[in-house]
Structures are given as structure tokens and as C-alpha cells.
């Protein structure tokens, strides 16, 4: 009985940790520009697929990981320079649509150059899983959770303490005022895209031992990550982690206790309920917008 409950909980944590890590990637660009970057899932894919491809080119695993992270960061900066910056005067909705186009483009490139097959990466720890109370917990889930927590703290420090982080926040609050205060807003945005791509690629890399990776893996992960971010309140990193875990746990409990047929429906009901009563999400800022 209890072992069953533990198992569902661990399943939920595994799923939730993945969603949380993906959700974190959305917060940074959202904070900088109020743009929801729908190409975030593709950064995940570049992290995972890039590593697989570089390992295939006989690079040792750590070097391949670093290579994939660099590749994704460059892709993020290029995405800003080539697609977002030229449309700097467009409104947010146009920019969001541009990111959707960019995601399709990146997916196409990956499909063409890296192929269409699914690939696996080895897990980080030697032991595969721990047995707790008759239930199995994957060590990789602990890695994912741990790294998610580290990232939350790092992002909080970055936005709260560093000049760059504050500049990003200032840019998001009022672009013109930030520019008047001497902030090069386009450079700041480029940096935000680069860091966000780095975060996404790191997430993609860490989840690959559990989820596998392929050119189109970013669609599902990106969508679930976005949902998690929306539950938590876009722009809040704590909210992203809580939203991810909530989503993962509700999926696992539904599959375990109700029926696997309703597994995908129940989380969406929860999302609707949360967004109905708390339109800004659980941790979203409730400050009224100045007109």
C-alpha cells in the first residue's frame, strides 16, 4: 500500500523534475522581454542531440557535453541577432510568433543534419536506482532535482545581486527608461537569449538519460515545461519548480490511482482551475500594470 504510494510519488518527482528544469528556461527570456520563447524546447534538443552527435564523433562524454552547451548558447545568441533583433520594434505577440518559426527551423536543421532516430545517453551515477520503502527512485531524478534547485538559487542571485541581472529586469520593466539609464537593451536581450539557451541545453542534457533524445523531443518537453511555468507564474523561478513538480505528481497520481487513460486530462483540469482563480499563476507577480 505504502510502497505503491511511494512509487507513484517517485514517478511524479521524476516527471516533475524534468518539467521543472524545462520551465526554468522559459523564465529568463520572459523576464527580459515578456516573450515566451517557444524555441526553448529546441535548445533542450540541441543539448541532448548535440552531446549524442559529438560523442558519436569520438569525443569523450564531458567534452561532448561542454561542446553541446557552447553550441546551444551560440544558437541562442544567433536566434536573437538574426530573428529577434531585426524585429525589435514589433510587439510581443509578433516576437512570440517569430520564436515559433525559429523552433520549426531549428528542428528542421537537426532533422536534416543529425537524423531522425532516437538516442540515449548514459546516466550520471553508477547506481541506476535506489530502493526506498519498497519503491524505486532513479538516481538521475535526484540529479535533475538537485540541479533544478541549484539553478533556482543561481537565478535568484543573478537577478537580485548582479548588475547584468538587474539590467535584464530593468529592460523588461521599461525598455525606454532602461535605455535612458545607459543600458544597451539589445545587448542585454542577446545575453538573456544566450543564457536561456545554455539553461535549456543543460536541462536537455540532464534529462536525456531518462527521456531519450531526438530532433523532435523539444515539442513535448517544451510544451510541458511551458505549462509548468504557467502554473507557477511566468517569470518566477520558484514557481517554475513548484509548477513542474505539481504537474508531474498529478500525472503520476492520476495514472496510479484513477486510470492511465485520464493521466493527461487531470493535469489540464488543474491548470484550468489554477489559472481561473489565479490568472498570474501560483507565484506570479500580482502588481497591477501601470497604464
Amino acid at each position, binding site marked *: 500500500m505504502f510502497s505503491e504510494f511511494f512509487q507513484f510519488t517517485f514517478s511524479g518527482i521524476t516527471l516533475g523534475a524534468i518539467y521543472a528544469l524545462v520551465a526554468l528556461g522559459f523564465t529568463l527570456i520572459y523576464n527580459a522581454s515578456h516573450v515566451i520563447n517557444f524555441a526553448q524546447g529546441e535548445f533542450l534538443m540541441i543539448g541532448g542531440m548535440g552531446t549524442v552527435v559529438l560523442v558519436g564523433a569520438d569525443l569523450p562524454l564531458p567534452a561532448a557535453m561542454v561542446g553541446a552547451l557552447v553550441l546551444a548558447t551560440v544558437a541562442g545568441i544567433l536566434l536573437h541577432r538574426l530573428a529577434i533583433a531585426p524585429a525589435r520594434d514589433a510587439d510581443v505577440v509578433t516576437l512570440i510568433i517569430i520564436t515559433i518559426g525559429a523552433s520549426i527551423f531549428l528542428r528542421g536543421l537537426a532533422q536534416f543534419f543529425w537524423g531522425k532516430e532516437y538516442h540515449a545517453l548514459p546516466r550520471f551515477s553508477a547506481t541506476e536506482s535506489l530502493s526506498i520503502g519498497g519503491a524505486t527512485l532513479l538516481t538521475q531524478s535526484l540529479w535533475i532535482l538537485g540541479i533544478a534547485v541549484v539553478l533556482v538559487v543561481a537565478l535568484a542571485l543573478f537577478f537580485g545581486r548582479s548588475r547584468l541581472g538587474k539590467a535584464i529586469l530593468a529592460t523588461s520593466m521599461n525598455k525606454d527608461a532602461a535605455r535612458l539609464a545607459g543600458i544597451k537593451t539589445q545587448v542585454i536581450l542577446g545575453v538573456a537569449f544566450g543564457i536561456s539557451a545554455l539553461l535549456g541545453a543543460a536541462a536537455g542534457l540532464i534529462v536525456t538519460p531518462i527521456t531519450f533524445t531526438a530532433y523532435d523531443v523539444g515539442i513535448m518537453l517544451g510544451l510541458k515545461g511551458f505549462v509548468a511555468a504557467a502554473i507557477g507564474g511566468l517569470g518566477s523561478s520558484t514557481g517554475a519548480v513548484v509548477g513542474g513538480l505539481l504537474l508531474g505528481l498529478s500525472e503520476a497520481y492520476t*495514472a496510479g490511482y484513477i486510470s*492511465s487513460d485520464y493521466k493527461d486530462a487531470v493535469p489540464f483540469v488543474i491548470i484550468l482551475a489554477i489559472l481561473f482563480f489565479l490568472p498570474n499563476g501560483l507565484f506570479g507577480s500580482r502588481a497591477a500594470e501601470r497604464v
Partner: protein
Amino acid sequence: MGRPAPPEPGQAHKNKAPPGHTQIGVIMKTKLKTLAVGAVAALGLTSLSPVVKAEDPIRIGSFLSVTGPAAFLGDPELKTLELYVDQLNENGGLLGREVQLVHYDDSGDASKARTFVTRLLRQDKVDLIIGGSTTGATMAAVPVIEQARVPFISLAGAETISTPVKKWVFKMPQSDRQAARRVLTDMKERGLTHIGLISGTGGFGASGRNVTLEEAKAMGIEVVADETYNPKDTDVTAQLTRIRNTEGVQAVLNFDFGQGPAIVTKNYKQLGIELPFYQSHGVASDSFLKLAGDAANGLRLPATALLVADTIPDNDPQHGVVTGYKQAYEDRYNSSVSTFGGYAYDGFQLAVQAIKQAGSTDPAKVRDALENIQGYAGVTGTYHLSPEDHMGLSYDSFRILEVKDGHWALVE
């Protein structure tokens, strides 16, 4: 997007037109009455060029999902068709005519498939169609093809394609019903009569679940646990825990394709479930073994003989064709063969055999010949086609394989 169609035969002739036209012109001036003879001579002249033969080429049309989500089906299928069309042409073609492959990529989109099939029939005027990597693409094409009355060999698996029999439609792969029956037969032989079922909610998994439930009922096997998951799910331990905790469950079957079953297999191992584990024919490929790794050891699944081409006994009726196809494919493409490419191989060989028997490309004659092919030993199995059965394979064309140390092994 579809690759551009090869030039029309008419165009090919036009390219060679200048010498031919002058010839006709000269003849017209001198002997008008022998114009017909002159025209033949002119045609003969153009045919001196090695590419263009005296007669129009035999045109085989094809629409496959070479890109998109079903690319793992369409890619080896197209490669196989190209390989054997080339080989046939090197050996003098078919009925003394060149064979031309006209191909479009439907990228797994049923409405595109329908458009391309219309184009194959109206514009390219193909003599026969081999294609339809997915059931969706196939079924979208069927009404157009039935209306145009051209023989069609489908490479997709669902039962609806060949049941009820459609006059012009044939199908190469076994249905999922045969796979289910093969697995359940093996379970019964091992004395496993209470099973757990876990299937994906995608088309393949859902259909597999239905036929498994039906066949199990017919064979006296009880499905005591019945769980599903979304094909894109990354963790199914909750569902597997439910199955494990169901009383009396003796074995577990996972019916799905793609990466889902690899995740199920890994989770199965992680949870330490000791019950005999079965997969469907949907993952009978080396890439599944690569994804699932160690976790796959000990599981069983139904598959065609192609997967164990290296170890298949010499006296097996499929031995020659299986090893031959594997070698030819791997020599040319430097990647390993898959069951799906095998369907294209069988489809093409059956088409060639039917056209040979018909002695022409007359659609009705080719169709009749196809329908009466008996005992063709192909890569997928030995086909016995008939007016009542346009698929022609029985459930025991599936072999039960077991994964041993990361390799497929034939279970005797």
C-alpha cells in the same frame, strides 16, 4: 516535400528530338505513304541513345513517409525500392523495358498522401503503386486508387487495409492481430494464462490493445491488468506498479512502437519486475535494442526472420532471400536493414513477379496475377495470396525472438 518527378517519357523523347524530326521531315518529302514506317525508324534512331529504350518505361509509383514522424518507416522503404529498381534495370529491366520509380514524400501526412497519389495516377500515369508507410496515408489513398483501378501494394500494417478485401489493394506486413496471436500462442505454450497489458494511446498501440483483448478472449487467456500511456510519456512506472500489484498476473505485454516501449522496458527493469516480458513487432529493430540497453535482456517479441538473418538455419525457406536482402542493403547504404525495408522488398518483388506473369502492365492482368501468387518466400514471410486474402501471411510467419546479451536470438 516530394522530390521532383523524373521527366515524363514524352519529354525525354523531345530532348532527343532534333535528329528524329529532321529524319521525319526528309521522309515526309519523299514518301508520304510510308510516314508510319518513317516514324518508327525515327523512334528507332532516338533509341540509339542508351538511356531511352524503344518502349516507354514501366512506371512504378510510390508515396512514402521519408521525413516526419514516420521517417523510420519510409526511409528504409524508399532506399530498398531504389536499390532494387536500379538492380533490375542493370539486369535488363522488366519485360525488356526500363523500370522507373516515381516517388513522392508524404512526410506522414495523410492529406498529402492523397494529393500525391492523385498526381501519380493522373499526371505520372504510373502502372502500379507501392507505398503508404503509415495506415493513415494508405487509407487516404485507397478511395482514389480504387476509382482509378490501378494495383496498389501497401506497406502499412493495420487490418482495415485488407479486411474487408478491396479489389485493387494488397498489403505486405502482417496485421497486428497476427502479432498478438503469435505472442499469446507463445505465452500459452509457456503456461502463462493471466497477463497484464500496457499499450500506448497512439494509433498503433490502441489498435494493438484492441486485437490483443479480442484474441486473448478467443484463446482463453485472461487480461487481468490493462494500462495505457501517452506515446510521448517519459515515465510509466506508475502504470507498471499497478500491473505488478494486480493479483495473479503471470506475464506482461507492451504493445506499441517508437521510443515509448524503450521507456517501458527500462522502467520494467528499474522496478525489478521478474515476470516474463513481451514486446510487439512494433519495436523489432536494432535501434530499440540500442535505446533500451541492458534492460531489454530476456524480453521476447514476434518478428520477421530478417532480424535473425545471421543465425537463420540454412534449410529455412526464407534463408536465401533474407540473407541476400540484408547483404545487398547493407553493402549499399552502410546502415542495418529493418523490417520495414523488408516490406518494400517483398512488395517490389511481388509486383515484378505479377508483371512478369501478366506479360504486360495492363492493370487488370497485373492485379489478377498478384492475387494468385502462391508460396512466394519473401523477407517478411511466405505469401499465399488469394481473392479472399490480399495479405497472404499467417500468424506463424512471425518468429518469436528473445533478447540475449543485447542480441536477438531465435526461440525454438
